């Protein structure tokens, strides 16, 4: 068994080494693929806070991913057309500044997570899965019918948004930016899991009645986790839109929700690097198997089956065994 910490370090090292190799070998597409993996990883680190720590099986995280995407799309669309979003009650203009777009993405997806969470957390188990799925579908169909922002066709943004001091059009610089954010988000998730809140949330997943008897509100703990989770996935959505310079209702689709969850299941539910390993493996499979066959999802399905049936705790669980006891 490999120590989990070494596996995590190795994973991070891959995220640094592969793009380096790609620059020297002049393989810019590999950098794009790696950026895709990093952005997926951020989305899944977000979901992992709700799913892994809070035990909330959300099949609606595409809502936040999509909201982040559309936050970018709408702001950048208005900026590139020099039209204001609204002139009343006060003037709001579009923007091409990434930090500002991220801020909007995080705020909008947190608010959505708060509302969806308040309604969904009245239920549990299968009903929670279904109600989050239903919210996902609502947003999906809303985006499809929102003709002002492209409807079914989505929105194309011609030039990638800017970040102070960086040339984001250079793939490796944009990649570095995303990787930096992934590291920040991982640091946050790591601190969170060892914090008083993390302890209480972890217990609220396992024995809500105990948490209640200790004088805490398990539903409120889960709600906060859901909001934090949605905010992070929303940030990833904004990055994903910037990576593709395109947003479409697909970001809201239930397949997207499913994929974010698949990353976590492949890597390991509740493990800090589970989403990261899962996203990397997924993107690699998508690229190589996708080149072999249009039906590559069959192989993905087989892999999932094997992991779910034989590997408790995903790939990380298979390689490292059970999670070490926290200190």
């Amino acid at each position, binding site marked *: 068994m490999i120590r989990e910490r070494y596996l995590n370090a190795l994973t991070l090292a891959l995220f640094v080494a592969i793009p380096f190799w790609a620059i020297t070998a002049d393989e810019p597409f590999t950098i794009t693929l790696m950026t895709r993996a990093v952005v997926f990883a951020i989305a899944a680190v977000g979901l992992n806070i709700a799913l892994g720590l809070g035990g909330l099986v959300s099949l609606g995280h595409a809502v936040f991913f999509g909201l982040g995407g559309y936050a970018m799309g709408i702001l950048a669309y208005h900026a590139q057309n020099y039209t204001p979003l609204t002139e009343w009650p006060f003037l709001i203009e579009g923007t091409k500044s990434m930090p500002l777009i991220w801020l909007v993405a995080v705020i909008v997806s947190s608010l959505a997570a708060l509302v969806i969470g308040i309604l969904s957390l009245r239920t549990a188990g299968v009903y929670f899965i279904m109600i989050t799925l239903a919210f996902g579908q609502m947003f999906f169909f809303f985006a499809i019918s929102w003709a002002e922002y492209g409807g079914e066709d989505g929105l194309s943004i011609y030039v990638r948004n800017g970040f102070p001091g960086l040339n984001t059009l250079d793939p490796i610089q944009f990649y570095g930016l995303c990787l930096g954010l992934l590291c920040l988000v991982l640091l946050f998730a790591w601190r*969170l899991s060892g*914090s*008083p*809140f993390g302890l209480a949330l972890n*217990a609220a997943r396992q024995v809500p009645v105990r948490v209640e008897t*200790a004088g805490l509100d398990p539903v409120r703990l889960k709600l906060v986790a859901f909001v934090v989770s949605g905010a992070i996935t929303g940030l990833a959505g904004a990055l994903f839109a910037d990576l593709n310079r395109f947003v479409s209702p697909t970001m809201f689709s239930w397949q997207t929700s499913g994929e974010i969850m698949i990353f976590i299941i492949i890597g390991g539910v509740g493990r800090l690097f589970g989403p990261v390993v899962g996203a990397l493996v997924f993107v690699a499979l998508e690229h190589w198997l996708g080149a072999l066959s249009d039906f590559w999802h069959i192989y993905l399905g087989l892999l999932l089956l094997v992991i779910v049936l034989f590997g408790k705790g995903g790939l990380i669980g298979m390689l490292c065994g059970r999670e070490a006891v926290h200190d």
Partner: protein
Amino acid sequence: MTDAVLQTSGISKSFGALRASRDISIDLKPGEIHAIIGPNGAGKSTLIGQICGTLRPDSGSVHLLGKDVTHQPTRARARAGLGRTFQISSLAMEDTVLQNVLLGALGASGRPWRFFTNVVKDTSLRETAEEALARVGLIDQARMRTAELSHGQRRQLEVAVALTQKPQALVMDEPMAGMGSEGSKLLTGFLDQLRHEAPILLVEHDMDAVFSLADRISVLVYGEVIATGTVDEIRANAAVKEAYLGDEA
């Protein structure tokens, strides 16, 4: 009656046609152990549920430290000083023993909204937690995973978690259940001391423990308290003998 720490006044609860609690008035005074005994299905769990807030009585009221808590949720009663141990261990099995007591201490501190500090390194929480573990004799197991504890140790941990909350009153649902005779003797001695810190409402099937610990006993049959009194009074009570104790007394 005004000095009762915990008091139910005429609480009743029905599930459909089943009257699980009928007009139950019991109280818990400072420094005492008040045992609730009764055959299976007598409504002991229903009574506990109403006292702790997981069930709402159809009528009647529950007072904790003189305040009406009938309509307050479990967590508010816990914060007001009501500690509880469960019949079936309700512990976070994936977590360590220490983390379980830390949760109790965290609940008592009322400050769970901290996202970046390390809970295990929080000295005040940790002191409370380790003190509670030491008192029940689990300090050497602090870093073990709870799932690896023996059944008896889990019972001890249940008590330790309740202690971290510095309770004003304790409700214990069969703390001896499934314990060996050695373990239940130890726990009996421990509860004997504990009553001076917080009075205990003790639901227990182990009659040796009940008769050696209880200051008062209430006998619950078909949702009704048929007798309340000292150990000797209950032993001598004809109705109790007939309804419940049988050959044991």
